[in-house]
C-alpha cells in the first residue's frame, strides 16, 4: 500500500453544513440515551460504569465535532464495543479477583449498612399504644395512635409515624363517642367490628420511617419499634441499641468481639491478593488446584500430540499424487472438523455410554471389557482424549497437507539420489520443515485446548468428582471449567472472586503462550521470507 494522506479532510463532501447538522442530531440522540443510562447506573450502584460511560460519550462528542479527529470517527463504534466487552471485563476481572465477591458477599457496604439500619426492635417496657384504623375506598390504611399520656400520632404508610398536629390532612368532624375524627382525607374510620374484619391485613401492615417502626400487635395494642443498629463511620462499627453489642467491619462482615455476625449478609471488600495466595497456602484448595493445573497442561499437550500425530500421518498418505479419489477422501476426512464441537461432544457422550452405547456394546462382545468411561478418573481422561482426537485431527490434516505441499520437491529428489530411506527422508526433511512451518499453529492449538471448556463440560462435566475436595473440582476439570464451577455451580455457593483469580491465572498463561507465539512466528517469517 502506497497511499498516504496526511491531513484527511472531508474533501468534496456534498455539503459540510448538512453533514454537521446530521452529526449534531445523532450526537444529541446518543447523549440523551447515554445520560439516561448513566443516571440508571448511578441509581443501581454502578458508579464506575456510569463514569466510564459518560467519559466515552464525551469522547464521542469530541471525535465527531473536531475535524482533525476524522479518522477516529470510523474507529469509534468498534472501539466502544471493544472497551465495553473486552477491556472493561478484563479490568473488572482483576478487580473482582482482589475482593471477597461471592454469594455470601454480594452487596456494597453501604447497602449492608442500610439493611442493618432498617432493622427495628421494641424496647423493653415501652408503653403500648392504642390505635384506630382509617380506610380509604382503595383499601389503603391510616392508623391513628394514642400513647397512655394522650399524645396522638398518625401512622401513614407513605410518610411514616408523625405527630397528629404536624400531619397535613383534611380531618372530618370529631366523633363525640371516642373524641376522634370520623375521617382523614378520604380515609374513613373503621368501627371496632370492621377493624376485626381487617385485622389480618392490618397486622401485616408495617409503617416505617427513619427512626421508628409501627406494628399492630392486637386489636387493642400497637407497638412502636426503635432503630436497632446504628452505624458509626468514624469507628467503622455497628452498635446494637438493644444489647449494646458493637460489631466491627471485618473481612466483609460486621463481627462482634465474640465472633458473632450482625444479622445481615456480608459486603464486598477488597482483600488484596489473598485469593491468589489461597491456591498455595490453603491446603484443602491447593491439592485440588494442583490436580486441575497439571491435568490442564497434560490434556492440552496430549491433545496436540495425538491430533498432530494422526493428522500428519494422514497428510503423508493424502499427499500422494497417485491416491485415487483424493478430493473425496480428503473431504470425508475433514468432516469431523466441520461439525460444531458441542454437537460432536454430545454425540460421543452417547456413543461412550457404558450401559447402552455402541462402543461398549462392541467392547463387551468382542474384547470382553466394559469400561466405565465416566465414573473412573483415568478412563474419563482417556475418553476425553479419544473424543478430542476425533474432533481435532482434521485441522492438523488440513494444515499439514498445506505445509507438505510447500516443501520443495527437489529436496526429496536429492535425498533419494543420495539413497536416503523413506524414514530418513521423513525424519530429516519432512518433520523438521513441517515443525518449523506449523509451530505457531501447534502452539495455537495448545492454547485453544488449554481453554476447551466445551469439550470438558459436555463430555464429563469435569467429573468424576475428586474425593475429599472442598472446592468443586472434578478429575477431568481444566482450569477454565474449574473456574466456571467455582463461579456458577450451585451447592457450594458462588465464589466469584476465587473464580476470577483462577481466570487471571489462565489469562497470564494464555498471554504468555500467545506472546511467545507472536515472537516465534515473526522469527519464522524472518527465517523463511
Amino acid at each position, binding site marked *: 500500500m502506497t*497511499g498516504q494522506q496526511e491531513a484527511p479532510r472531508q474533501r468534496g463532501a456534498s455539503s459540510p453544513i448538512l453533514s454537521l447538522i446530521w452529526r449534531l442530531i445523532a450526537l444529541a440522540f446518543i447523549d440523551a440515551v447515554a445520560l439516561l443510562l448513566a443516571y440508571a447506573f448511578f441509581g443501581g450502584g454502578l458508579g464506575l460504569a456510569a463514569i466510564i460511560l459518560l467519559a466515552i460519550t464525551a469522547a464521542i462528542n469530541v471525535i465527531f465535532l473536531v475535524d482533525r479527529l476524522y479518522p477516529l470517527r470510523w474507529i469509534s463504534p468498534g472501539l466502544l464495543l471493544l472497551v465495553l466487552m*473486552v477491556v472493561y471485563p478484563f479490568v473488572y476481572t482483576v478487580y473482582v479477583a482482589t475482593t471477597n465477591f461471592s454469594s455470601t458477599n454480594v452487596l456494597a457496604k453501604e447497602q449492608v449498612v442500610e439493611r442493618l439500619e432498617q432493622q427495628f426492635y421494641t424496647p423493653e417496657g415501652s408503653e403500648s399504644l392504642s390505635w384506630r384504623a382509617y380506610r380509604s375506598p382503595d383499601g389503603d390504611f391510616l392508623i391513628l395512635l394514642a400513647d397512655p399520656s394522650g399524645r396522638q400520632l398518625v401512622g401513614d404508610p407513605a410518610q411514616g409515624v408523625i405527630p397528629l398536629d404536624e400531619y397535613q390532612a383534611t380531618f372530618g368532624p370529631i366523633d363525640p363517642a371516642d373524641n376522634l375524627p370520623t375521617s382523614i382525607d378520604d380515609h374513613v374510620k373503621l368501627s371496632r367490628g370492621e377493624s376485626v374484619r381487617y385485622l389480618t391485613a392490618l397486622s401485616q401492615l408495617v409503617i416505617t420511617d427513619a427512626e421508628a417502626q409501627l406494628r399492630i400487635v392486637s386489636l387493642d395494642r400497637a407497638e412502636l419499634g426503635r432503630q436497632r443498629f446504628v452505624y458509626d463511620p468514624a469507628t467503622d462499627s455497628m452498635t446494637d441499641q438493644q444489647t449494646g453489642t458493637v460489631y466491627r467491619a471485618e473481612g466483609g462482615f460486621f463481627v462482634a468481639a465474640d465472633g458473632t455476625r450482625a444479622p445481615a449478609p456480608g459486603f464486598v471488600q477488597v482483600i488484596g491478593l489473598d485469593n491468589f495466595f489461597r491456591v498455595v497456602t490453603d491446603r484443602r484448595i491447593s491439592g485440588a488446584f494442583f490436580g486441575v493445573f497439571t491435568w490442564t497442561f497434560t490434556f492440552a499437550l496430549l491433545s496436540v500430540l495425538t491430533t498432530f500425530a494422526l493428522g500428519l500421518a494422514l497428510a503423508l498418505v493424502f499427499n500422494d499424487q497417485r491416491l485415487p479419489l483424493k478430493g473425496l477422501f480428503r473431504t470425508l476426512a475433514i468432516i469431523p472438523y466441520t461439525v460444531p464441537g458441542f454437537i460432536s461432544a454430545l454425540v460421543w457422550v452417547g456413543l461412550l*455410554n457404558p450401559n447402552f452405547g455402541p462402543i461398549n456394546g462392541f467392547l463387551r462382545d468382542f474384547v470382553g471389557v466394559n469400561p466405565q468411561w465416566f465414573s473412573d478418573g483415568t478412563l474419563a481422561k482417556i475418553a476425553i482424549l479419544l473424543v478430542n482426537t476425533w474432533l481435532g485431527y482434521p485441522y492438523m490434516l488440513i494444515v499439514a497437507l498445506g505445509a507438505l505441499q510447500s516443501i520443495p520437491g527437489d*529436496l526429496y529428489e536429492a535425498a533419494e539420489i*543420495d539413497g536416503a530411506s523413506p524414514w530418513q527422508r521423513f525424519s*530429516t526433511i519432512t518433520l523438521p520443515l513441517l515443525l518449523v512451518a506449523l509451530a505457531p499453529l501447534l502452539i495455537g492449538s495448545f492454547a485453544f485446548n488449554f481453554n476447551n471448556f466445551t469439550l470438558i*463440560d459436555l463430555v464429563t462435566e469435569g467429573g468424576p468428582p475428586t474425593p475429599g475436595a472442598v472446592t468443586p473440582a472434578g478429575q477431568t476439570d481444566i482450569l477454565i471449567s474449574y473456574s466456571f464451577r467455582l463461579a456458577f455451580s450451585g451447592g457450594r455457593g458462588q465464589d466469584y472472586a476465587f473464580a476470577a483469580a483462577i481466570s487471571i491465572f489462565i489469562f497470564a498463561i494464555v498471554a504468555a503462550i500467545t506472546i511467545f507465539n507472536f515472537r516465534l512466528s515473526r522469527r519464522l517469517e524472518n527465517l523463511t521470507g
Partner: protein
Amino acid sequence: MSGPTAPAEVKPAAAARQGRTLGVRSRRRISLSFKVLIAVLTAVYALIPVFFVITASLNPLQTISGASLIPTRVTFDHYARLFNSPFHPWPQWILNSVIVSSLTAIIVVALCALAAYSFSRFRFRGRRLGLMALVLVQLFPNMLAFVALFLLLQAIGNALPSFSVAIPGVGTFEPARLGLNSLGGLILIYAGGALGFNTWLMKAYFDTVPYDLDESALVDGASHTQAFRYVVLPLVRPVLAVIAILSFISTYSDFILARVMLSSTENFTLAVGMTLFIRGQFTQQWGTFAAAAVIGALPIVITFLLLQRQLIGGLARGGVKG
C-alpha cells in the same frame, strides 16, 4: 531460507541402488495400496459417528441400546417430534442461535470494515498504537472474563429494569433486554470479542486494494464515505463474506458464554439447549437427540464443505474453530 542439510547417512553405491530398482517399484505399488487402505479406514473412522447419528435419527427406535448402523425402517418421526415436543422448545433454540449468530456477524463485519478502512487509508496520530492495541487485545479472549461479563450483564439488567421506550409504529424498545438471560447482551459480548482479530485481518486485506482507486474517486469529488461505499467495499467483498461466515460459525458453536449468560429455557441457544438432552433419560430419547444433532450440524457442515478453500484460508490464520 535455511533448509536442513542433506541426510548424513547416505549410500552412494550406485550398484546397490540399481539392484533394488525392481524392488522399489513393487514396493511402491504395495505402499499405494496401503495408502488407499488407510484412506478408506480414515473415512470410516471419520464417518462412523456421523452415520450412527443419521441412522439413529431415521430409526423408529428411540433408545440408543437397540440402535444399529442400518435402520430397520426409515421414519421421520424424530424430526416431527422436534418441532412439537412438549419438553423442549427446540425450534426456539435454533431460531435464537440463528438470530444471535447472524446479528453478531453483521455487527462484526460492519464495525470491522469501518475501523479497517480508517487504519488502512488514513495516517493519524495514535494509528500505530491502535494497531498494536488490536494485537494486544487478542491476548485476552473475552471468553476468559466470563465471570466479569456475567456480573456486567447482571448489573446492566439490574440498573435498567424499568426502562422501556415505546416508539409508535415500531414497537417497544427495552434496553433492559441487554441484561443477563437476554440475547441482546450475548450478541454484544460475542461481537466485542470478535472485533480485535477481525479488524486486524480486514485491515490487512484492505491494504491490498490499491490506494490509487479510492484516491481517484476522492479527486473526482467523492467524500470518504462515498469512496468507502462505492470503491473499496465492492473490492473487499470476499473478505467480508469470509469474516461474516466465520463469525457466524464460531458464535453458533460457542458454548461457555451462552451457558453462563442464559438461564431460561426459551432463551437458550442451540448449544445450551442441546445439553438438556443429556440430562435425565438421554439414552431414552436418543432418536430425538440424533435428529436435533443432524439439523443443528448440517447447515454448518455444508457451508464448510462448499467453501473449504476460502474458509480454511481464514482458519489457518485464525487458529482453531470450536
